[in-house]
């Protein structure tokens, strides 16, 4: 290394930082807090770990308890939990009612059909045997009649048929009339 170059290198020592910057930097640095002791303290680490584990365990327990409580309240005290308002039982009951209504409707239908048959039969009978024409009109007019006295009005007063001496049932008599 030549003397000249050495001298030039030594001249580089004249490079200095700006004073204002240096002061500001120093103030900022000294105002910054130091890091706490970084020496590993196994004792402190253990306590930290223990504290964290306890906190984690308590937190989990709390969450589970909360969920369980909500579930219990929902099951026992929720309006939807009441028997009367239980959706399933309501739907079952509704189905039962539907069925019974249907059965009743079927019965009514059947009875209506039967009634219609009886009326037709009576009409035919009255057509074939004119003296009995008042019977069908009486029947169709007064369907609601059900007393014994009223029934006797429906009885066929055929001279050929002496009811006082009748020994057969009403059905046999009706069969005879039909024939």
């Amino acid at each position: 290394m030549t003397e000249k170059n050495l001298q030039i290198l030594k001249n580089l020592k004249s490079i200095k930082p700006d004073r204002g910057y240096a002061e500001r930097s120093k103030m900022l640095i000294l105002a910054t807090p130091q890091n706490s002791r970084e020496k590993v303290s196994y004792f402190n680490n253990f306590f930290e770990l223990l504290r964290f584990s306890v906190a984690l365990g308590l937190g989990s327990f709390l969450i589970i308890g909360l969920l369980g409580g909500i579930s219990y309240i929902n099951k026992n005290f929720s309006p939807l939990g009441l028997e009367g308002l239980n959706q399933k039982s309501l739907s079952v009951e509704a189905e039962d009612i539907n069925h019974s209504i249907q059965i009743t409707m079927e019965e009514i239908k059947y009875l209506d059909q039967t009634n219609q048959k009886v009326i037709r039969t009576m009409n035919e009978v009255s057509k074939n045997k004119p003296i009995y024409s008042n019977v069908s009109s009486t029947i169709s007019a007064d369907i609601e009649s059900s007393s014994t006295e009223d029934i006797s009005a429906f009885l066929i007063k055929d001279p050929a048929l002496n009811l006082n001496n009748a020994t057969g049932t009403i059905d046999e008599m009706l069969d005879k009339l039909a024939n």
Partner: protein
Amino acid sequence: MLDGDQKIINSAISGKASAFGLLYDKYHAQIYRFIYLKVSHREEAEDLTHQVFLNAWQNIKKYEFKGFPFSSWLYQIARNQVIDHYRTKKSNIDIEDIKEIKNDDDTLDNQVNRNYEIEKVKNVIQNLNPEHQDIIIMKFVEELTSQEISKILNKPQSTIRVIQHRAVKNLRNMLKKENKNGQKKQIK
């Protein structure tokens, strides 16, 4: 290192900011110079120097006196800081930074010549590899001992001498080229 320094360092380790302030005043310029010659940009050098002393203040409790000056520890931090800086950013040669190098005792001509020479050497140092830069700056600019340089670079002294020899050779060759280029420009 003087006994006085050791007392100041111990006070700084115990947390006294004023003690660290004294250390800052003593070593700030040379750390700044070291970083500036490596990155060749004033603002970057200021930022990195600030970071070096901030790290030193925050981690001073880790410092242990092992027979070397406190500056050795600072130089280590500075080297690492520059290495990290190189990883993230490319350093640019800033010719305008020549303005801050002044010597009021010189005449204007001398000042201009000196500035020109300094700028030339600075550019040449920039072209050396980082290890050669470190040794040239520490040895010839900051005038540290081989022992201190060995501690800072964490290499045996024999290795340091070999690297120093190669660094000086490279520097000389580059300066010769710079001088030849300068003369060619003058002729034109």
